């Protein structure tokens, strides 16, 4: 028992060391100037995509409630944080918290009525809500309507991005390892049966929706404070589809899969920058082919974790 405890402490320490080392390495490369401007943008997009994919995976993958409105929550986070930091001149951390909380509230308001719906109806309703958020933003003069907000202070930096992405992953992984997580998975597997087992399905569905929305808001905050400009059209449902592609490719219900897919899609987008339309054709083919030949996605619902590595290490199958 004592030995086991020591071992888990050791591997925990190892993880922390790996995370910090990765962070320091990139930070060092950034300060020395090894990473040029376009790769820096790629790096930022990657972290934002990881946050988005992992958080959407909580809703679409783990809870099994197909949401097509994730970009709407991203928009709420982005706009609220910019209002806080730029219009009211508050510190960045307040902007981050405000953006997350506002997106979470939006998630609650949208989640409570729509999560009574199932399957494709839910998908369409979330898509509709995402679009309504966009249209409403277009009609608010305070945030310049369709023109959007230009000249946002650049506050997003590598440490912020890296650690927020790590926090997102940690929160969701730990949530899924808790009793809450098991309740959430039981809803995906069989909603009626889990309700019969005494699980308050509405409560857990709304909870997953709120947490997912909050992290989408976080991604929106990071996006807004790096790319200088936000406008309602940035957050149209095509962006939601981008996120769905990542989640589907990675495997509905696998955080590792979502991270890998987010990294892959970011590089694909980067590589096909000059051919925006071709990129969308490739995305669509990925969706169709994955659904026909491997509907569980790259990773299925499997995870790469400490256990997997130690299993490979000790040579056990």
């Amino acid at each position: 028992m004592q030995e086991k405890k020591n071992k888990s402490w050791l591997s925990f320490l190892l993880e922390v060391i790996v995370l910090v080392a990765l962070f320091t390495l990139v930070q060092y490369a950034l300060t020395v100037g090894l990473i040029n401007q376009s790769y820096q943008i790629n790096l930022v997009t990657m972290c934002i995509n990881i946050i988005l994919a992992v958080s959407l995976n909580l809703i679409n993958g783990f809870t099994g409630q197909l949401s097509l409105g994730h970009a709407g929550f991203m928009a709420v986070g982005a706009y609220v944080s910019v209002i806080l930091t730029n219009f009211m001149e508050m510190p960045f951390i307040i902007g981050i918290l405000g953006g997350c909380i506002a997106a979470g509230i939006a998630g609650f308001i949208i989640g409570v009525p729509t999560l009574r719906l199932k399957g494709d109806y839910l998908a369409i309703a979330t898509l509709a809500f995402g679009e309504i958020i966009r249209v409403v933003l277009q009609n608010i003069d305070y945030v310049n309507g369709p023109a959007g907000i230009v000249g946002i202070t650049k506050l997003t930096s590598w440490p912020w991005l890296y650690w927020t992405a790590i926090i997102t992953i940690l929160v969701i992984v730990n949530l899924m390892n808790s009793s809450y997580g098991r309740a959430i998975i039981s809803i995906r597997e069989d909603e009626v049966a889990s309700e019969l087992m005494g699980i308050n399905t509405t409560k857990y569905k709304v909870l997953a929706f709120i947490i997912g929305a909050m992290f989408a808001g976080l991604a929106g905050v990071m996006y807004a404070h790096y790319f200088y400009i936000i406008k309602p059209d940035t957050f149209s449902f095509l962006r939601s589809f981008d996120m769905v592609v990542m989640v589907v490719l990675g495997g509905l219900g696998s955080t590792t899969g979502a991270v890998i897919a987010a990294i892959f899609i970011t590089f694909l987008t980067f590589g096909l920058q000059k051919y925006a339309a071709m990129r969308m054709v490739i995305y669509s083919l990925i969706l169709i082919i994955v659904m026909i030949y491997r509907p569980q996605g790259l990773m299925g619902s499997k995870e790469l974790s400490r256990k997997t590595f130690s299993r490979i290490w000790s040579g056990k199958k």
Partner: protein
Amino acid sequence: MLEFSQQIVNGLSLGAIYALIALGYTMVYGIIKLINFAHGDVMMVGAYVGFFSITMLGTNIVVAMLAAMLLCALLGVLIEKVAYRPLRNSTRIAALITAIGVSLFLEYITVVVLGPAQRVFPQSAFPIKAYNLAGLTILNKQIFVFVSAVLLMLILQYIIKRTKTGKAMRAVSLDMEAAVLMGISVDKTISVTFAIGSALAAAAGVMIGVYYQTINPLMGIIPGLKAFVAAVLGGIGLIPGAMVGGFVMGLLETMVSGYGSSLYRDAVAFGVLIIILLIRPTGLFGKNTGEKV
């Protein structure tokens, strides 16, 4: 009052287009319980076929519409065979994601092949004339759209109610397994459903070309979503429901842009959808059926 009647005239012709598209959604949903996201994009392809038929082959509008209907019927059958048939026994979410994939594919393959630019639908194919009727301005394109849409709906009603194919379609949508036992070829019936639905969408595409005079590769998205809302409004899976829903959506939209803000025009459709889904998910004409375990 006059302005109100004018809005009704405008709304009816727009509603006829939505109704035609909504019919395809509702027929496909009725038979395989799939929201065919690509339906609006089939409409876009129809508009392009019509466009090229007029500009390159110099046909008149009726021939262009028939050509679009024929080609899109084939496209619809092809989409079903390639993308939806392998997924018939998998989860509905998987089928829905595939449909989104097909939709994106049609949109962006058109962008890649034909370019993203907007094209102007040739005026020569359909010179605009305005008629004055008791103070109302009625354009000949409105009459054209309304009459041809109603004609197509009547033909559809005939096919569904009076022919053997229509009977097979109704049987499969009622109970697929029982239909198989009765000797109905389900695959063939589903193909026919896609063919008819896509042909109607193509006709609507040419009408939109005539009506709005411009076409572009992403033109299918918003009318497609609105037609879907129309189908849900009338009760998805029900053919008369889709027709009524389409007209209601058309009227609502012209009223909102006529009396309110045109910026909110698209939000209204989504608002209606959400209200319907929350209050009466089965639509105006739908019956409520409980979930069986």
